[in-house]
């Protein structure tokens, strides 16, 4: 398996396919030809993209099969008025280029207890669902997909899913069917249904509100939380007790990523605050910890003695961890 250097894998672009007027699909493999690290459905990668204004760190969901370790696939929508990362992916990157990419992390995992999985997506939001469906299809889970697109020329990915999964996939806005009625999609679902929504913020809010109206509890509602749960925020400084290294964590990277970038290793599995693997002792703290994981108990959080470096941050003048 290919290994990370300074926190990133070197991945080569093998193929670039336009799938809609705005979206390209990229197929990546390890530049050294080795197997890629495994991932679970719903995981994303962060690409370090060179642009005219420095390096951009953009997160993209993995859409290839979690059971294929020979390649990763992502879809990138070009955002003309964005920070330039997606435009660089479309205009500067070509087949054969090597891009530094972080190890997959999952902030959008499937529920293990669901009796039925209901996916609602808009546009490029369908990408994490590709990998989740591969997982469910192999494990035999019950699911259905509702995908809204902005017109027939934007429906390629949806049509691919229909080819694979038939009438378990419903496409809206492709010219054949009208708008998605979210309340109707959520109505009268059997107990144990879980909804996953991935798309524009407006769509996520809409699904959450409609689900609450119909009495769904939060444990059954899942959405991709790149901005709020992914680790971005104010910069801070961390000291590693064992080596004495003083490391700056920039606004766009996690504590774990910053430590890895400097060539140190910390244990990890999910990189999404869920598995507990990266738990690290806090030796000194002058300030407050910003716990963003789903792992620590309330008591652990209040103790200020443990941190999950894959997602959590700190607002502090001093932070020393036992690493």
């Amino acid at each position: 398996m290919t290994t990370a250097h300074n926190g990133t894998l070197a991945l080569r672009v093998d193929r670039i396919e336009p799938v809609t007027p705005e979206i390209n699909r990229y197929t990546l493999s390890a530049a050294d030809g080795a197997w890629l690290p495994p991932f679970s459905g719903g995981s994303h990668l962060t690409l370090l993209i060179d642009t005219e204004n420095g390096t951009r760190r953009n997160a993209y969901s993995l859409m290839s099969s979690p059971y294929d370790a020979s390649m990763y696939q992502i879809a990138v929508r070009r955002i003309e008025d964005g920070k330039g990362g997606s435009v660089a992916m479309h205009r500067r990157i070509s087949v054969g280029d090597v891009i530094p990419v972080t190890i997959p992390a999952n902030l959008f995992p499937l529920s293990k207890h669901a009796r039925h999985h209901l996916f609602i997506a808009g546009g490029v939001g369908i990408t994490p669902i590709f990998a989740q469906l591969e997982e469910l299809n192999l494990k035999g889970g019950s699911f259905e997909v509702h995908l809204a697109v902005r017109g027939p020329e934007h429906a390629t990915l949806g049509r691919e899913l229909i080819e694979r999964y038939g009438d378990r996939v419903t496409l809206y806005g492709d010219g054949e069917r009208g708008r998605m009625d979210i309340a109707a999609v959520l109505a009268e679902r059997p107990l144990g249904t879980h909804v996953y929504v991935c798309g524009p913020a407006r769509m996520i809010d809409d699904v959450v509100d409609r689900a609450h109206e119909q009495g769904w509890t939060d444990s059954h509602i899942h959405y991709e939380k790149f901005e709020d749960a992914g680790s971005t925020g104010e910069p801070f400084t961390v000291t590693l007790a064992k080596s004495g290294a003083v490391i700056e964590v920039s606004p766009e990277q996690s504590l774990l990523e910053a430590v890895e970038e400097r060539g140190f290793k910390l244990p990890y599995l999910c990189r999404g605050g869920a598995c507990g693997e990266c738990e690290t002792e806090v030796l000194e703290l002058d300030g407050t910890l910003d716990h963003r994981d789903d792992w620590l108990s309330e008591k652990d959080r209040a103790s200020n003695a443990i941190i999950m470096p894959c997602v959590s941050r700190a607002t502090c003048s001093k932070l020393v961890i036992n690493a």
Partner: protein
Amino acid sequence: MLITGIKSRPVYDQLVPMASGLRHIAVAQGSGGKPVLRLLAEMTAGQRASTTVVYSTESFTGNSYLSELQDQDDVELRVVATNSEALQALDDVLSTANMGTRLYLAGSEGFIGTAMQVASAYGLDRDEILREHAGSFVRRVWCAHCDTYTENVTTRVFRCPGCELDLVVRDHYSSRLAAFQGVKADGEVPGELPEIEELDT
């Protein structure tokens, strides 16, 4: 080491109407009728109209709230004679229930535990369920040697009806088995039993 504080025992709630739910199912046994009556009294007319109560008159203490429950005529009531029938009725109701349902459980620890197993099988999560303990804290015990479950155990040491071994009831509650574990009491020194005290919980 066997008998220490019970950390694994569930922490119980108080039954109060969960206003975000659209449909309410309350399942109670024996003394559990009392918290359910309190719950119904706190509900709005609309909530009561969308509530089903399953009540089992099987009780260790002999307490029954049947007639009070029967007086609640705007609430759908299903009465059964045994706890196992109550679980069957719960299974029935859940099989046709939709998302938006809230479940309320009240009764002995063993009853709540086994009802939780039914609820989990339907994918209900902790934020859709409230549980209130009522009546005596008798224990449901699983024999680690012959796999027999014994309801309503009140003493620290008892004889397993399955394998006839004297078992000591450990303080570890398994939510998977919905029971406390019973292990051979004279496992360390044959013939030497711990004191047969009352279980204080």
